[in-house]
């Protein structure tokens, strides 16, 4: 098949699949709580509904900042999503793009003068400082262990068996970072629905909110697929089996890193979250980096 047709197909289908995963996550949450839950297409229906609504923004909205933020947010989720599923591109570039998505959220919130939005941006920024370092550590350790930077070769199956335990460190870091990066309940302090009414998104509505919600779903799927790709993908899984295996493992990861965490804990305060991310994952990351560096020095 022509490579351009593949990219266009993926560009249309993967956002839809990301919304479906969001719906599956809501269904799993509901089942854990003993409810029936919405149909798994619910997030997709929400998306269509938001597109049909009229947009009503405050008069003093900074439109340039709003559009920049939305474009950054969308690009920071859509491009990584295509990259990780096509296994094309550079890990460092992926890291920058995903940090750019967080920057997009901040810019979107700063476009409004609502105090809720400002509080949300401030908390989002503190959280970003706390967890992005662990995310960067995870990617750097992965690159140092596997010795490559591209997504097609940088994989658990490309290194000898004795080095596999070293990849446990970034894997655990990713599991810590995933809820914060996606923004689910114990650590979604910047977007807390019940306290500050979705923080940076408090004033946007209609199609702008649709883009924000779509970006969030795509970021979740991209992060899950990145974890699958780097740490959980055997070498002999190719072709159609690659897609089936990826989607199944992504679903399992969504269940364990998002749904279970979300139902096991209530939302914590910003100082608790920052303290946690600045101690546990960061310590693991620094120790991991030292171990990997020393082992490289010994020629392993």
């Amino acid at each position, binding site marked *: 098949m022509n490579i351009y047709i593949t990219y266009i197909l993926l560009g249309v289908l993967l956002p839809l699949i990301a919304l479906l995963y969001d719906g599956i996550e*809501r269904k799993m949450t*509901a089942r854990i*709580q*003993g*409810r*029936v*839950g*919405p*149909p798994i*297409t*619910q997030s*997709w*229906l*929400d998306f*269509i*509904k938001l*597109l*049909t*609504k*009229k*947009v*009503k923004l405050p008069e003093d909205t900074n439109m340039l900042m709003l559009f920049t933020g939305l474009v950054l947010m969308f690009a920071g989720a859509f491009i990584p999503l295509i990259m990780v599923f096509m296994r094309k591109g550079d890990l460092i570039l992926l890291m920058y793009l995903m940090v750019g998505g967080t920057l997009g959220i901040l810019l979107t919130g700063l476009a409004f003068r609502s105090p*809720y939005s400002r509080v949300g941006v401030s908390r989002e920024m503190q959280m970003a400082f706390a967890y992005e370092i662990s995310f960067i550590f995870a990617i750097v350790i992965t690159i140092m262990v596997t010795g490559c930077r591209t997504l097609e070769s940088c994989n658990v199956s490309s290194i000898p068996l004795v080095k596999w335990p070293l990849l446990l460190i970034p894997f655990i870091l990713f599991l810590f970072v995933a809820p914060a990066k996606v923004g689910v309940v114990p650590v979604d302090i910047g977007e807390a*629905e*019940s306290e*500050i*009414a*979705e923080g940076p998104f*408090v*004033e*946007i*509505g*209609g199609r702008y*909110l649709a883009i924000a919600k779509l970006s969030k779903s795509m970021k979740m799927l991209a992060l899950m697929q990145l974890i699958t790709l780097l740490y959980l993908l055997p070498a002999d899984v190719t072709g159609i089996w690659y897609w089936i295996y990826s989607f199944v493992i992504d679903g399992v990861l969504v269940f364990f890193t998002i749904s279970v965490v979300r139902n096991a804990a209530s939302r914590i305060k910003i100082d608790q979250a920052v303290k946690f991310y600045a101690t546990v994952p960061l310590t693991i990351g620094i120790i991991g980096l030292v171990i990997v560096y020393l082992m490289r020095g010994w020629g392993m």
Partner: protein
Amino acid sequence: MSLWSLLFDPDNSIWVYRINAGSCNGCEIETTPLFTPRYDAERFGIKWVGTPRHADVVLVTGPVTAVAKESVMEVLSQVPDPHVVIAIGSCAVSGGVFRGSYALEGPLDNLYPVDLYVLGCPPKPEGILTALLEAKKILKAKRKGQHQEKPLVVDPAGMVMGR
């Protein structure tokens, strides 16, 4: 639900915002169980939102007091179209036991067009859930540009009257 409505019907997603316009909290206590496992309104695509700018449906409880009037009108002016306004409970419908008081500016339909009334002091969660499901049909009509002539009334146990 048919496959079409599962995949493409925007009316299966209703985001609800609540306003307390001087209510005694009885109606709030009855709206909260909608999201417990017993009633589980989320299976119909209903979700609470924290800001009027995301809302499709606005639930107003309480007679609109003189103090609350300005805030209520400002919040209602921020809800994007198409939207449905539901008056919950006797106070929001008619003023209830406070009717005629010097402290009231309401009831709500003196100030803003109301699409659905839910009777009862307080109404049961079944009544509120029925009203939200009726709001789906009103939203569908409003998306097509139609307007219903007279508002619907839902009794406390969830029977729809006035049709």
